């Protein structure tokens, strides 16, 4: 039972609990994240992209660059594990 670690964790917990009262309530329809940007994507996705799934439309069309970087990240993870764990020198 590491006392210093427990005290650090409790201190962080108290600070986070104190910050909860500023956050919007669960399921609030007037939350700032949902009113402005979310509404914009929901209104414009059908005529810009023509795909019914809004999440796929954002992922592949509005934010296509992020998904390309994402695919490179998982490709790098595969190569790193292969480099670390294979023996014999052949990739």
């Amino acid at each position, binding site marked *: 039972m590491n006392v210093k670690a427990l005290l650090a964790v409790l201190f962080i*917990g108290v600070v*986070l609990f104190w910050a909860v009262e500023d956050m919007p309530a669960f399921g*609030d329809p007037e*939350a700032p994240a949902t009113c402005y940007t979310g509404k914009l994507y929901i209104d414009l996705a059908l005529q810009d992209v023509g795909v*019914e*799934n809004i999440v796929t439309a954002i992922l592949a069309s509005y934010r296509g660059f992020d*998904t390309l970087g994402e695919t490179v*990240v998982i490709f790098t993870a595969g190569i790193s*594990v292969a480099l670390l*764990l294979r023996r014999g020198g052949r990739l």
Partner: protein
Amino acid sequence: MEAVFEVFLSHYNYWMAIILIMIGFYALIAKGNLVKKLIGLNIFQTAIFLFYISLAEVEGGIAPIYLPEGMEAVYVNPIPHVLILTAIVVGVSVTAVGLALIVRIYEEYGVIDEAGLLKVVKRR
């Protein structure tokens, strides 16, 4: 007293996320075994995902897929779902590379906890 109860009932998703953050963070810094530290990191990550996705909820909303023409519905906010999809994949990659490093450390030095590792490395 009534106000405190009101805050507790309407913000309960943040409380759950904070408790999971505390558990994961404690496992990350207080345990000596390297695999346990990695599992603590995973718990921490999952808590952050839950916190972020619970920000996207709208009361009475349905999944963000367009209904057929003419039907009105309230959709939940689709952006946090997209960002967390990317973050989950990054979390899987970090866990995979971390576990591969632990396997190599064990093969090379024969120890798997932090204190033993420091001793062996200092002796070399």
